């Protein structure tokens, strides 16, 4: 009510400027400005940041980024009481306000140039890892780690090794994938539980880093 009284004061010219500014922002411009929200942690080219435990996201497929953003937004992912990194990501997904914003930012991220991230860990036993990979992971993530949209499995070859190990741990402990609404997460969780220990995780992740990218 009050705003109408003021709107009369402000005059047509200013309102026109508001409308022009608010309504007709080009999608490309908006999506790159939306990425400002992600930049402090994921980096200006989506390369990720070890100190902040932020994964590389450049070039991830749009459907995967969008699905994860929705999970974070709804609290399906990142809401476990012990998931420190998830707690930092979740509000960021929630701060995408416009109805199309998750899609726009997912689109922007998918178009960023993906870079192969060199391993940060010492390479472990890649042959043991390869055996595990071909037995367990290949069904969803594919022979070359290229992922599978129909099964909701992301490509993994370019991801940081420390991030993959951390996620395996989170799946195993139930920090990720234990929410009843997280269907793909639950599948991944079941797979992660078959990995015996930390050594097996490092092996399989080392193998993934040897895949062609």
């Amino acid at each position, binding site marked *: 009510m009050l705003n109408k009284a003021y709107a009369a004061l402000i005059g047509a010219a200013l309102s026109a400027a508001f409308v022009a500014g608010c309504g007709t922002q080009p999608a490309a411009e908006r999506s790159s400005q939306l990425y400002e929200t992600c930049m402090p942690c994921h980096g200006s080219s989506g390369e990720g940041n070890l100190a902040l435990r932020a994964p590389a996201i450049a070039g991830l497929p749009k459907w995967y980024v969008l699905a994860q953003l929705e999970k974070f937004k709804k609290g399906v992912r990142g809401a476990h009481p012990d998931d420190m990194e998830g*707690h*930092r990501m979740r*509000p960021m997904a929630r701060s995408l306000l416009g109805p199309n914003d998750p899609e726009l930012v997912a689109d922007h991220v998918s178009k960023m140039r993906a870079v192969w991230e060199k391993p940060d860990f010492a390479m472990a036993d890649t042959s043991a890892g390869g055996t595990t990979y071909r037995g367990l992971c290949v069904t969803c993530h594919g022979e070359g780690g290229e992922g599978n949209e129909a099964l909701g499995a992301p490509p993994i070859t370019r991801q940081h090794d420390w991030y993959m*190990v951390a996620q395996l741990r989170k799946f195993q*402990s139930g920090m990720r994938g234990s929410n009843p609404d997280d269907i793909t997460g639950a599948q991944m969780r079941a797979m992660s539980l078959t990995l015996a220990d930390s050594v097996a995780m490092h092996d399989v992740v080392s193998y993934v880093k040897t895949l062609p990218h």
Partner: protein
Amino acid sequence: MLDHLIASAASFSGDVDGLFVLITVLVGVWFIAAEAMFFWLIFRFRAKDGEKAQYVTGKEKHLKKWINIPHALVLVCDVVIIVAAIRVWVTIKQTLPPADRTVRVVAQQWAWTFADPGPDQKLDTPDDIRTTDELHVEVGKTYHFLLESKDVVHSFFVPAFRLKQDADPGRIYTGWFKPTKTGSYDILCAEICGIGHGVMGALLVVDTPEAFQAWEQAHAAETPAEAASATESTPAPAAGQ
């Protein structure tokens, strides 16, 4: 007055609202009197042709009393407000009535997590109910909360309870509240804590005893064993790579 703007749902929230009314009345009178005097003087002594201003030094007794009497009255009002304010403060912050139940409130960038003691009423036992974003409490019970922060300074703010307490890393603060009205109320973080500060919210749900029982049973059934093993976070990378 405040309960027209925001629900009043804790035992001490009415005290805070009462203090607000008291201060509004006391300073309101002063404010209106001062502004009325001010505008009247501007109108009364506006410049007129051929009329010179008076020469007043401020040492005249009959004029000085207009300063001295209000001065003394302001002091009296101050004393009244101080007494009232400290009474409310002592209720909220300086006394700790015996608890029916103790919950843990943990702040971190950028979420609230809570631990309810579960059926055994003891914190840090396997039947604790750990939740994110939602704290369930039972109406009419006195709660203690143990407030801590995992990283930076946060502040536990429940507007409907008129309750606020900073959470500093490295310390645990104990406070109390007694919800008096069922419903769900916002929990906000009241100290800037980084880029997610603006979306660091949670809900405080005040349940009826039956609803609380139901909630407790539903959650106590969940196996909590995993949570204990999940505390290890992301590993550090090997050196030299």
